[in-house]
């Protein structure tokens, strides 16, 4: 057996192949079948385009159903191990704050209110898993610093504090060529920290008087805050520092 064929033989082979496909005699009795169809009632089927449209609609429906069935599983609370992992991750980020976070915590002259001492959003997420700090922050928000004392919450000195020298060291390490700028930042930070009342020590004893009422109020607020933790008012806009003057840039875009 050989594959050797001349081009003319190929032409003939193509002709034969084509004829073999199409040179088929129609089955006999066509006229009778056509007459039978003409006599039969008109059968209306779906047009071709409608068939494809129906198939596309079915496919889209199945995809939508798949997405809807999958969403609740994604939104469901995670396993305890997953929650623990989230807390660990948040604590790790808390243990090693960025330069911006350190500057936000220490370099800015903070007002006496509790809002300025609020943790960043990631820290608030970690505290949600703890539960105890959630109450503290809610009490501070709703009833002022006195409520925290009324709840017998530990003072904030136990929270990890970041010194101004640490900020200077970090900045120096990050930008060794600008040590002069870093030392200026450190001196300003020291002054700012000295002028800032630390949470807990700034509590006024007079504000702790209506302790019982404040406790109930704080509990309610803690629940409400837990429900809307994701939009917690504790979020602060990122602090921007002018590198030349080492002064915070006022946030003119901030919404009231």
């Amino acid at each position: 057996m050989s594959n050797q064929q001349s081009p003319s033989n190929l032409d003939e082979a193509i002709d034969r192949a084509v004829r073999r496909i199409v040179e088929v005699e129609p089955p006999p009795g066509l006229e009778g079948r056509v007459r039978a169809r003409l006599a039969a009632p008109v059968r209306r089927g779906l047009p071709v385009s409608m068939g494809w449209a129906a198939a596309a609609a079915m496919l889209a429906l199945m995809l939508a159903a798949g997405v809807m069935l999958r969403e609740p599983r994604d939104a469901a609370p995670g396993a305890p191990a997953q929650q623990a992992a989230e807390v660990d991750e948040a604590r790790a980020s808390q243990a090693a704050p960025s330069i911006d976070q350190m500057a936000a915590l220490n370099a800015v002259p903070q007002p006496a209110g509790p809002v300025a001492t609020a943790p960043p959003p990631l820290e608030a997420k970690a505290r949600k898993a703890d539960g105890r700090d959630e109450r503290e922050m809610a009490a501070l928000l709703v009833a002022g610093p006195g409520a925290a004392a009324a709840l017998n919450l530990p003072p904030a000195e136990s929270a990890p504090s970041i010194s101004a020298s640490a900020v200077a060291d970090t900045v120096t390490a990050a930008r060794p060529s600008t040590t002069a700028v870093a030392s200026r930042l450190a001196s300003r930070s020291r002054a700012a920290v000295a002028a800032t009342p630390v949470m807990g020590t700034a509590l006024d004893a007079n504000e702790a008087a209506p302790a019982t009422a404040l406790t109930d109020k704080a509990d309610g607020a803690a629940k409400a805050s837990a429900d809307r933790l994701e939009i917690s008012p504790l979020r602060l806009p990122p602090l921007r520092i002018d590198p030349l003057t080492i002064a915070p840039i006022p946030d003119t875009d901030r919404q009231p």
Partner: protein
Amino acid sequence: MTASLAVSPAEVTTDLDLVRLAQAGDAEAFGTLVERHRRAVFRAALACVRSPAEADDVTQEAFVAAFRKLAAFRGDAQFRTWLLAITWRKAVDRRTSIVRWLRLTAEPADDRADQGRSEVDRLPSGERSQEDAAADAELQRHLSRLIRTLPRKLRDALLLAGSGEHTYQEIGAMLAVPVGTVKWRVSEARRVLKMKMTALGYGHE
């Protein structure tokens, strides 16, 4: 040309006369038209859908549709061209039908490949040696597969032209392209087939 209703359809020679008779309600005249064009209609459908059973179904649909639209036929074009255009639209509808697609998807390809072949084709010819018959069968199998894989436009033109039932004008009317385009498509289809066959080792002296 005006057809006389008193004339028997058997005596009428032109399609237009038969159409006039059929429009006047003469069922026998329409039967004559069916008998006259059934092969061309069937092969046009077969070139499109590739299955004799489906081609027969399409042929019936085309004649039924032609009968129902016969009152609208004005005679501007030839009846045969008009009928073939209806047939081609029906066949393309069938080819793109989702029901057909689903059925062909579920059906094994080997069954489809042998569907259009008669038992006589599968037997080796008595005049040839068994070796030649086997080589020819292999060549034809390759060609059938390559024709199936041709682009649809080239394949349609090639099969319609190769059926021996349709002129280039009729093919152009069916495919809604000029005659020159039909000729180019047929030539291009043959060129592609020969190139692929050469790549398979055929076509060398």
